[in-house]
């Protein structure tokens, strides 16, 4: 009984003695140990660097989603892949404003909604004229889109309901048209219709989505836009929170199928895109990259492990006499096994540590390259844990065979060994 209780203690004692011995052994064979663990150093170093890079990318992507809005969703017409409407005309497939009537009441997970109509137009002011992209929006747009009005006011329901000839103008467009800095109350011509400027919108914050921001933009109420130019439209909504995005999608789908009179067996004639799904896609890609990196690290750890096994075999045969002596003075086979196993594991863990330091150096290098956009790159704690875990596993797996060999040596023969 007591011996069973003492067993872990004995193991512990051998453990720390073994580590001391192993460190001594590694220290006396510094160069050899370094070369041996190179495989593990490279493996751990490269994989931690890749993970750190991904982490940096992820942080960046999450940041831009955050600024863009992770709870945003879009409703766009779409031809189904099959069914009778597969080749239907655009008139049948297109979305119309009335499809979205009362949507908010029927979709509790959707917080706000705006129909959007975009078209190109010619815009004039005084002697200046230019092509602009006109976007018809509803007042909810201001809640969904992360863009503030820096001068003047936002659109109101009255603007929209009354289809008033008012517009919001971006800073860039204002400057290109040589309008005053505070141009509210001034009028401009869009396709020869007169619109009054009610506010100035800030430029779209820098984002990895939708560039083309170089194009001049002007916003008018949706109804106004629909009146002057009926055609392709879509809608944008924000769900209550990113967590209910899938609920919101289901509710919206049900609602739109209803308003668009789709029979139960008919496929959708529209598509709903959630920002969250892009995030999911990115995550999936990150997982993919992690797996590829994992494959690389597995191979290099395998190679490293074979190196460890080789050097441990050399070590066992070099120290045959010592093993014989240890056995002669009473070392049990298990004690010898443990000693060599600990040595292999220590070697691997040191390799893992050096690799980790190397990975950290690469990470800092990556973070310092401005173009790479990986300033947020860092090695997460789980990756460090994994690096050591894998190193230790390699030590155990590849150290086992030499350790067993050492533990089975016959003491007399070992002592006779030259």
């Amino acid at each position, binding site marked *: 009984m007591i011996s069973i209780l003492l067993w872990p203690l004995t193991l512990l004692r051998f453990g720390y003695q073994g580590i001391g011995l192993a460190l001594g052994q590694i220290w*006396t064979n510094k160069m050899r140990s370094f070369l041996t663990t190179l495989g593990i150093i490279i493996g751990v170093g490269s994989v931690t660097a890749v993970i750190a890079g991904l982490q940096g990318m992820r942080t960046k992507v999450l940041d831009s989603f955050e600024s863009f809005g992770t709870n945003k969703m879009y409703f766009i017409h779409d031809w189904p892949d099959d069914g009778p409407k597969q080749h239907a005309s655009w008139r049948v497939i297109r979305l119309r404003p009335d499809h979205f009537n009362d949507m908010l009441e029927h979709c509790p997970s959707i917080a706000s909604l705006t129909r959007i109509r975009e078209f190109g137009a010619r815009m004039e002011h005084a002697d200046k004229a230019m092509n602009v992209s006109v976007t018809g929006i509803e007042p909810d747009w201001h809640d969904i889109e992360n863009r503030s009005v820096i001068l003047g006011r936002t659109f109101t329901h009255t603007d929209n309901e009354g289809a008033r000839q008012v517009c919001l103008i971006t800073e860039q467009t204002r400057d290109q048209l040589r309008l005053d800095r505070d141009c509210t109350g001034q009028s401009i011509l869009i396709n020869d219709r007169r619109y009054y400027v009610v506010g100035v919108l800030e430029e779209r914050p820098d984002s990895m989505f939708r560039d083309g921001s170089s194009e001049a933009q002007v916003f008018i109420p949706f109804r106004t836009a629909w009146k002057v130019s009926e055609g392709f439209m879509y809608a944008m909504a924000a769900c209550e929170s990113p967590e209910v995005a899938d609920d919101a999608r289901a509710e919206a789908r049900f609602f739109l199928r209803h308003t668009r009179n789709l029979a139960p067996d008919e496929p959708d004639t529209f598509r709903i895109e959630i920002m969250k799904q892009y995030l999911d896609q990115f995550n999936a890609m990150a997982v993919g990259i992690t797996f590829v990196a994992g494959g690389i690290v597995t191979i290099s750890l395998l190679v490293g492990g074979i190196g460890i096994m080789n050097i441990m075999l050399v070590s066992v045969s070099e120290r045959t006499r010592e093993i014989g*002596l240890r*056995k*002669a*003075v*009473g*070392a*049990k*086979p298990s004690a010898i096994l443990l000693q060599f196993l600990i040595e292999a594991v220590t070697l691997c863990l040191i390799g893992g540590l050096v690799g980790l330091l190397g990975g950290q150096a690469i990470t800092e290098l990556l973070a310092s390259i401005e173009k790479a956009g990986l300033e947020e790159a860092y090695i997460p704690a789980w990756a460090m844990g994994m690096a050591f875990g894998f190193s230790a596993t390699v030590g155990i797996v590849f150290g086992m065979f030499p350790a067993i060999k050492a533990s089975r040596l016959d003491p*007399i023969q070992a002592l006779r060994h030259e």
Partner: protein
Amino acid sequence: MRTAQNGPSPSATEQAIIRLQQIRKIYKVGVERIHALAGVDLEIGANEYVAIMGASGSGKSTMLNILGCLDRPTSGKYLLDGQLVSRMGSGALAQVRNDRIGFVFQSFELMARASALKNVELPLIYSNVGWWSRRKRAIHALERVGLGDRMSHRPNQLSGGQKQRVAVARALVTNPSILLADEPTGNLDSKTTVEILALFDQLHREGQTIIIVTHEEEVAAHTQRIVRMRDGQIESDLPVQEDKDQHSQERRIPTSDDVSDAPSGFDADNFDNERIPDNGRPATTTQAPEPEPRSPQSDEAGHEPTPTPARARWASRGASR
């Protein structure tokens, strides 16, 4: 002293530390079977001081390895302190070696990179001794062998005799029941040999049971009992005085000049082989030790040639003379 007198007599049975019964060790080399030990019976009591002698290849080391639980006999019983060890597994044997046996080797077998103290501590690492008492016991053992002032020296900073003392200290540190030494002075010059023998004598006086394998009569002369082996069997087992009487008779005949140029090891072997008559019986069938007086002119032609060619050469040279 008492045990020395009644050495091999049955009355020692009760106090015997070591009891060997029909121990055989058979090595298979290819199809050949080598009877390294061919039925050995031996008893050794507490505080005995025994020398095992015999020609090269006669099985001395094999016997010592079995006594030291480094090896298991092919058949036969070995009782150490009344415990049957001849059938133990390797783990249990390691424990026995650790607890009860101190081994001294011809080539010291010290760890080159460790200090004397660390070397002596080694056996205690494998027993349940705490760090502090391990150190204390190692220091004590080194003091016992007179190396209290050399504890932090490494083996390459010690003389041969000092190295062997460290090895003896290492063997003693676990307070073993028996101290076994396989040619402990084989690598030492005559002066250091005397030094180490004095140490063994001292340990014996302190109550240690000691068994030494040796080729040298001077070494054997320090002991109380001499076991002579031949072809895996015990040829004679006598208190040192009686053994000396017999051998001094045999010794008188050869003139030393014709063998003095031979290497000393072979010289001794040759001497033994030629002077101690062989009855011509194969090793495996030879029975109990035969302490009967030998006649010096035993026929050398009938003498079994010894296994090594070198020895055969020396034997034939002796024959041609």
